[in-house]
């Protein structure tokens, strides 16, 4: 519980710190006011650049944390990562194919669609190889 509270406070502090850092010259209170009220250039900077950036960082961090926890818990290995079972490589292949065929340009969300579906394919192939009675050990070896 104590750890959770500490981490949440740290996350909030870093979020605010991220909002107040950037190339544009503005002090803390100026940038925070501009976030809500600014309709000049600083408002644009805060709402279109810094806020999306900070939120994206939290979302990416959260999803990485969740998938890491799931993999490491299942494989009983604190060093496990998606590369171990070939998911990242397969997703990268999907992304490259999407970029080269023009799928990424002409289809909305084409790039994420391609990489996620290739990652899913990798997982399915893996499950197929591991067999119906596969333990986590056979999964790694497959």
């Amino acid at each position, binding site marked *: 519980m104590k750890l959770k509270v500490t981490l949440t406070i740290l996350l909030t502090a870093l979020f605010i710190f991220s909002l107040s850092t*950037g*190339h*544009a*010259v503005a002090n803390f209170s100026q940038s925070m006011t501009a976030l809500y009220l600014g309709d000049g*250039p*600083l408002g*644009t*900077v805060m709402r*279109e*650049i*810094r806020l999306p950036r900070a939120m994206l960082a939290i979302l990416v961090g959260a999803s990485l944390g969740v998938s890491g926890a799931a993999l490491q818990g299942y494989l009983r290995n604190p060093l496990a990562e998606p590369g171990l079972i070939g998911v990242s490589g397969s997703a990268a292949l999907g992304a490259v194919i999407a*970029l080269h065929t*023009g799928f*990424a*340009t002409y289809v909305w969300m084409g*790039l994420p669609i391609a990489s996620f579906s290739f990652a899913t394919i990798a997982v399915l192939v893996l499950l197929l190889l591991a067999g119906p009675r596969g333990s986590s050990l056979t999964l790694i070896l497959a």
Partner: protein
Amino acid sequence: MRVYVRRFSFVAIYLALYFFGTSISATAPSPKVVSLNVCTDQFLMLLADDSQIISLSEISTDILSSAMAAEASKYHQNNSGAEEIYLLQPDMVFAGIYTAKATVNMLESLNIRVEKFEPASTVDQIILNMQRTGELLGHTDRAKLLITNFESRLAELTSGIKNKPRAALYYANGYTTGENTLAGQILDLAGFSNIASEVDIHWGGTLPLELLIMSKPDVVITGTTYPGSSRSEEILKHPALKPLQLVSSTDANWVCGTPHILKAIEDLQTIHPDKMSIK
């Protein structure tokens, strides 16, 4: 209307020059040339006789890099390899100062005269390059006429500018160029002030998006994008740029210091408040 007449007279001068030039060149020594650089390609096409051009560089027909891509298609193209060029037996090779050192050295050791051209980024350098090309090709009169036309048209374009709207050049990956570059010069000649100098960028460098927004330029000038998707060009579609006036203008005419920058200036001036009334 006036503009069209002016343009037409420009073309007529070119044509007259062309036919007149070919008739006298028989007496003057006229070296045959291979060009290895997209900018010297254009000088060659502007000043040389057809028979003097053996071969042009590979990208001379690329519409995104070469201002004379259509004209270039009727000439042979080389891949800038020393072996290939030697077999073409040129009297002279035109190269840029940054053309592959190994190739240039090899050609020189084979006793082929290589003329290295500095990329021109100012009007004076452009004129010097035209003069030099004319002298090398034995067409000084042609070069003189080209320079006179260039100067008078430039004077016409740069006259009558009272206000200098603030503009930013903004390319893929957030790159911008300052007043010491050709693009910066074109911007200045067209009657805009460059915000790059306000953030201390005088040559080229990355302009952070935040600084671009904060400096509130009157217009943001971007390049013609390549087909397909590219992560480096995504930044030009950033929602933060929405409040600004975005113009996609830089193209092949901005690449080389040749008289084609006049076209670049003309295109840019279609959005200049002091010049819009003429159009």
